[in-house]
C-alpha cells in the first residue's frame, strides 16, 4: 500500500477534519446564532462529502441522500432554530460550566482519545480512508463535551444534531452501501426529533422565559 495518500483520500480526510474543526468552533462560539450557522456549514460539508463519495464510487443512491440531508440539515433545521431564537430574544449561549480554555483542552483530550481508540481497530473500508472514521468518532465525542458543558437548550440541541453529523460521516466511511430506504428512515427520524426538540424548547422557553438550563434542577434523588 502506498504511503502517499491519493487525491481521493486527501479530499475525504480534509472534509472529515473540517467537520471536526467546525465542532470545535461551535464549542467556542459565544453567540447562539453563530452556533447555528456553524452547524449549517458542518452539515453542508457532510452533504458535499456524500456527493463526492457518490461521484467517485458510483453509488447513485447517495445523491438522493445528499440532497435530502442538504434540505433538512442545511436549510430546514437552521431556519427553524433561528426562528426560535428570534422569538426568544436571546443571543448569548449559556456560559459553560468550566472556563473556555479548559473546555477546549477537554475537547482536545477526548477527540485524541476517540481518534486513537477507533484508529487502533484497523477497520478497512472501500469507500473512504479509515482515518475519516477515527475523525468522525472524535467529532461525536466533542459533541458530547459541547452538550455536557454548555447550559442552554439551543447549544444542547445543536450539540445533538452535530453529533448526528459525526455519525453521518462515519456511516459514509463504513456503511455507504446502506440501503436507501434505511438512510431515508434515519433522516426522517432526525426530522421528527428536530420537530420534537423544537416543541420542547418552545415549551421550556414559554415556562421559564429563558433558554438557559440553569433552573432545571428541581428534580433530584
Amino acid at each position, binding site marked *: 500500500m502506498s504511503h502517499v495518500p491519493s487525491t481521493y483520500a486527501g479530499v475525504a480526510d480534509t472534509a472529515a477534519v473540517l467537520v471536526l474543526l467546525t465542532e470545535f468552533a461551535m464549542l467556542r462560539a459565544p453567540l447562539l446564532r453563530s452556533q447555528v450557522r456553524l452547524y449549517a456549514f458542518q452539515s453542508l460539508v457532510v452533504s458535499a462529502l456524500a456527493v463526492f463519495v457518490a461521484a467517485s464510487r458510483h453509488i447513485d443512491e447517495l445523491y438522493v441522500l445528499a440532497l435530502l440531508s442538504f434540505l433538512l440539515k442545511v436549510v430546514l433545521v437552521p431556519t427553524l432554530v433561528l426562528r426560535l431564537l428570534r422569538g426568544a430574544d436571546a443571543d448569548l449561549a449559556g456560559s459553560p460550566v468550566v472556563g473556555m480554555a479548559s473546555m477546549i483542552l477537554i475537547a482536545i483530550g477526548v477527540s485524541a482519545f476517540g481518534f486513537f481508540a477507533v484508529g487502533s481497530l484497523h477497520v478497512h473500508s472501500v469507500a473512504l480512508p479509515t482515518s475519516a472514521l477515527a475523525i468522525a468518532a472524535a467529532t461525536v465525542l466533542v459533541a458530547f463535551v459541547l452538550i455536557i458543558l454548555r447550559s442552554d437548550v439551543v447549544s444542547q440541541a445543536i450539540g*445533538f444534531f452535530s453529533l448526528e453529523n459525526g*455519525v453521518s460521516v462515519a456511516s459514509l466511511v463504513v456503511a455507504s452501501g446502506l440501503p436507501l430506504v434505511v438512510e431515508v428512515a434515519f433522516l426522517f427520524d432526525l426530522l421528527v426529533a428536530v420537530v420534537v426538540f423544537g416543541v420542547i424548547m418552545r415549551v421550556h422557553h414559554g415556562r421559564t422565559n429563558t433558554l438557559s438550563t440553569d433552573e432545571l434542577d*428541581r*428534580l433530584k434523588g
Partner: protein
Amino acid sequence: MSSLLVAIIVVPFVVAVVTYFVPFRVSKVLTVGSGSITFGLSVALIPTAAHHAQVTAGGLLRVDALSVVFLVASTFLYAATAVFAAGYLHLGRGAAGNRYGRRFYAGLNLFCWSMAAVPLVNGLALLWVAIEITTVLSALLVAIDDTDGATEASWKYLLIASLGLGVALLATIIMYYAGTTVFGTAYDLSYTKLLAGASHFPPDVVRLSFVLAVLGFGTKMGLFPVHTWLPDAHSEAPTPVSALLSGSLLAVSFYAILRYFQIAERTLGPVFPRNVLLLFGIASLLLAALYLLSQRDLKRLLAYSSVEHMGILAIGMSFGVPIAVVGVLLHVLAHAAAKGTAFFGAGSVIRKYATKDMANIRGGIGALPWSGPMLVAAVLALSAMPPFGIFRSEFLIVSGGLSDPRDTVAALLVILVTIAFFGLSWFTTQTMLSPDPDPTTRGGTGAIAVAKGEVSIWIVVSMVIGLVALVILGVHLPSQLSQLLDRAASELGSPR
C-alpha cells in the same frame, strides 16, 4: 399469519389518527378496543412462533419467538393502560380539556404503536428507527401536563435518550461494517442474515458495536450510569404514560440489547457479552436498591424499582444458563404486568390524595377499599412474593445463577433484591396499611384525610386485569406460552 403482523402495525396507528379528531369520550372506547385487539392478535401469534422459526411480512416485518415475548408484554400493557386511562383522566370542561384529551389519546396510541413496532421490524437499522420514534413520542407525552416539573423532566429525557440513541446509531453503523466483511458493501441489516453470518464477523469490530449498543440502548432501558432521566420522567409524566414507560418502553429497549447480544454471542462466544451485561446489571441493581430506601415520592419509588428490575434482567442474561434465560423472558412479561398494576394503584392514590408525597398519604387501604389492597398486592408481586409471576421468574433466574460457577453473583443478586424489597415494602406499609388519619390531629402529621371510596371503576378493573395476569404467570403458565419462552431462550443461546 403475516397479515397478523400487518394488522398489529396498522390498527393502533389508524386509531391514533382517529382519536385526534373525535371527542375524547369516543377515544376512550376506541383506545380500549385497539389495545384489546392488538393484544389478541399478539396472543394469536404465540402458537406459531412457539413452533415455527419465524413469520415474515414483506421484507420489513418479521417475528420469531423472542420478538413475540416482547410484543405480548407491550400490547398487554397497551390494553390494560387503555382501561386505566379511561378512569384516570380528569378532563376539565370546555375547549382546553377537550384539546388535552385529544392530544393525550392520539399520543398514547401512537406511543403504543411505536412500542409494538419495535419487536416487529426486521433488522437492526429499522430497530433503531422504531426505538427513536418511541423516544420522541414519549418525550412529548412526558411534557403534556405542562408543569415546571414535566418540562424539566421531558427536556432531560429527550436530551439524554437522544444522546444514547446517537451512540446506538454508531453501534448500528459499526455492526453494518462488520457485516460488509461477509456480505459485501450493500446488504440490509436483517436479523436472519446477520445471525447466519455472525460467526465470521471481525471480533474487535463486533465487540465495539456491542458495547456501544449496550450503552446506547441501555440509556433507554435505565441501566446505571445512564439511567438519570428515568426517575424524573416516570414521576412527572401522566400516570398512564409512567406505566407504559416502565412496563414496556424499558422492556423493548432491553429487546434491542438482546438482538445485539445474539449476534455478539455468535461472533465472540458467550463470555464477553455476558460480562458486559453483568457489570451494568450489578451496578444498576445496587444503585436502585439503595435509592429505594430513601424515596418520598410514590412514583419515583416505582421508577427506581424499574431500574432494579432492569438490573435483574441484565444479570439474568449474564448467567447464560437456559433456565435463567427463560426466567429473564418470563420476568419481562411479569414485570410489565406488575409494574403496570402498581402504577395504576399509584394513580388511584394520587387522584385520591392529590399528592405524590408519601409522607402525606396515610390509611390508603381504608380510603381505597379495592385499589388500596391491590396496590399492596402489586408491590408484593414486585418484591417477588408468591403466587405472582415475578416470584417464578426470579426463582428461575436465581436457580440458573446458582448452577453457574460464579454463584457469588446469584448470592449478591438475592441480597440486593432483599434490600429493594425492604425499601418497597416499608413505604407501602407506611402509606397503605397505616390507620386512617384522624382529621382532628391533622396538623401534626401532615397526613391528608380523605373520604372513603374508589376513584373510578375503570382503575379497579385495570388492576384486576394486571393481577389476574400475574397470578396466571405465577401459578400455572399456559403450555403454549411456556413453549414460547423455551424457544425464545434457545434462540438466544449460542448455537455452539
